[in-house]
């Protein structure tokens, strides 16, 4: 936050718009050095980001199929998508996860962080227990949950049975497959818990004490001090969590067993899964490219919307 000569409105995450440049010999040589240092990224950006993005955009107006010359078909892919029932199912499934799983995961992580911040003996041990599942590889974790949630011999339904609950069919039931995946996601939310935990530790003790002297109870302190103080973390996790959720793939692929993607009854046919299916199984690369660009635009809109709305709810210290 050094040079404050720019009068620009502060952007989220402390990003400032640059001031005007005066070109001298010095700035030119600075630029050369700078670009040299940046060259790995600049080359990568052009080769693996910008160029593929543009090609993908171009593909989306083609009926591109591998090993066949593409033909320009204008907006046909997009028009087809609008009436593609599976496209809407996939989008729906993904929105379900974005709107339910992401906030739910954040909320649960925050509660877990509060628990782990309590001064109890064995705190360090508890933190490790909460964190460990998050470093279990995705494929291993998903397979483990398929086993745990096995309707007949799985541990979860057996335990439920013992307390008199007839457990659902989980991954085999279209109504329960997504909740099962949400559970899997929450099992591995240790990273988010740690981020919240460090946020909780950064809340100034003096503020909490002052509020307490003024007679604020634990819940009031939480609501009026702690939650606002960690709101930038919430925003950051909300955005990254949402972006990640729009691309939700590996878990769903494993649940589908590879050759049965989306099972049961397309309930785990997420956007990225259907996109993958179109691109690499049906070899409709143009169609998949159109899907990819739609996804990008959806993510863009969601992110900007969140940043806009968050202006009013996020508190930046300093």
């Amino acid at each position, binding site marked *: 936050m050094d040079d404050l000569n720019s009068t620009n409105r502060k952007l989220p995450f402390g990003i400032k718009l640059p001031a005007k440049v005066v070109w001298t010999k010095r700035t030119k040589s600075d630029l050369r050095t700078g670009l040299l240092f940046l060259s790995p990224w600049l080359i990568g950006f052009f080769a693996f980001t910008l160029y593929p993005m543009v090609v*993908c955009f171009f593909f989306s107006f083609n009926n591109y199929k591998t090993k066949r010359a593409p033909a320009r078909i204008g907006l046909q892919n997009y028009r087809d998508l609008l009436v593609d029932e599976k496209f809407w199912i996939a989008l729906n499934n993904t929105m379900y996860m974005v709107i339910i799983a992401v906030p739910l995961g954040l909320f649960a992580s925050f509660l877990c962080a509060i628990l782990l911040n309590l001064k109890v003996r064995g705190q360090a041990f508890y933190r490790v227990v909460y964190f460990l599942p998050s470093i279990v*590889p995705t494929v291993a974790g998903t397979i483990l949950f398929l*086993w745990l949630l096995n309707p007949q011999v799985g541990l979860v339904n057996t335990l439920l049975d013992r307390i008199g609950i007839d457990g659902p069919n989980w991954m085999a039931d279209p109504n329960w497959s997504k909740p099962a995946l949400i559970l899997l996601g929450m099992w591995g939310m240790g990273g988010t818990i740690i981020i919240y935990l460090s946020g909780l530790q950064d809340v100034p003790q003096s503020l909490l004490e002052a509020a307490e002297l003024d007679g604020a109870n634990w819940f009031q302190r939480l609501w009026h001090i702690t939650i606002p103080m960690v709101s930038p973390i919430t925003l950051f996790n909300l955005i990254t969590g949402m972006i990640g959720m729009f691309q939700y793939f590996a878990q769903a692929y494993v649940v589908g067993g590879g050759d049965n993607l989306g099972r049961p009854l397309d309930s785990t046919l997420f956007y990225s899964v259907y996109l993958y299916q179109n691109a690499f199984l049906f070899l409709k690369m143009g169609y998949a490219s159109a899907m990819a660009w739609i996804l990008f635009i959806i993510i863009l809109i969601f992110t900007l919307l969140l940043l806009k709305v968050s202006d009013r709810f996020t508190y930046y210290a300093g």
Partner: protein
Amino acid sequence: MTNTSASPRDLNLPPQPKHISQSEKHVRKIRDIFTSTLSHGVIIFVGMFFAIPFLWMLLTAFKSDQDVFHSPPRWLPYDNVRVEVNGEKLPLYNVRVEDGTIKELAAVKIVEGVGTFVDPANPDEILTYKLQQGKERIAEAIMEVSFRWQNFPDAMNRGSRPGVGASFWVYFRNSLIVAFFTIIGTLVSNTPVAYAFARLKFPGRDLLFMLILATMMLPFQVTMIPIYLLFNDYLGWGDTFLPLIIPAFFANAWDVFLLRQFFKTIPEEMCDAARVDGASEWQIFTQIVLPLSTPVLATVTVFTFLYAWNDFTGPLLFLHSPRNFTMALGLQDFQGQKTIIWNQLMAAATVFTVPIIIAFFFAQKTFIQGIKLTGSKE
């Protein structure tokens, strides 16, 4: 810090009465014990959600084939008690013999509910019993808690499907190779970029930094198809590790961001002093900044390992023949079989997970620091 327990605030904070009565002390002590027990209780209850699946993976990995499907499931792995008869290890059964007494007999073979038994004390005599007569159970296997370590070599020596000509050892090695080169590429390419964003002043820097941050929003799917065609069809790198490794040599937004955050904390004066002495930016970067950055380099190494080890989509797109599979791909392939051998699957999953757990216990601070760095804004 949020403080729920009543004691610290009552002790730390002002208007304290001069004399606390004996009974009040008691009340306070009881309240402390109560809040502490409640805290532990809630933490442990929620903690079970995290711990039990993990333990279940380990426990299943040690179970015998029948025990996996034992109904209802038991926590600990059980296996047959075996005795050696004529040089063979045979499972022991409790058999109700003709006179109604129960004898421990060793089963030679069991075919369609009829068992051929021998008495370990008198191995020459062959006895035949039905396992079940009507509703009555005649022969019952004697079980004991026993961890079946053999599952691990069994799982690792097999392929993900019959006759693939590659074992999980090969997948494991492949994962290591990919992870190793991804780490090298990530370290080499991200550090100079992050240094430029953290310390160099040049026109357009902040704009470029916004651009690199913006790429975090870009879904992989947008670049996936052209990159696939480039690597697979145009460059002919399909079914090699190159498509997984090469992009790591061209920096990425997350690691640049993480490294930049750290580089910014290195005192500017040290670099300025070197600049006055005529050091070039490259010298300052390699001789001052990098040596001071070992903690963050360790963080990047650990996280890149985690990412490469965990990655599923990349290998799925580019690796086709089983001898090139990584652990993630091999495990998925194994799970996708018609009949799932759960104990071996869990053993393979454990082997897949253990390197990360080991890394975590060796570099716990590094892990936590990295997560905090990526999670913090500014």
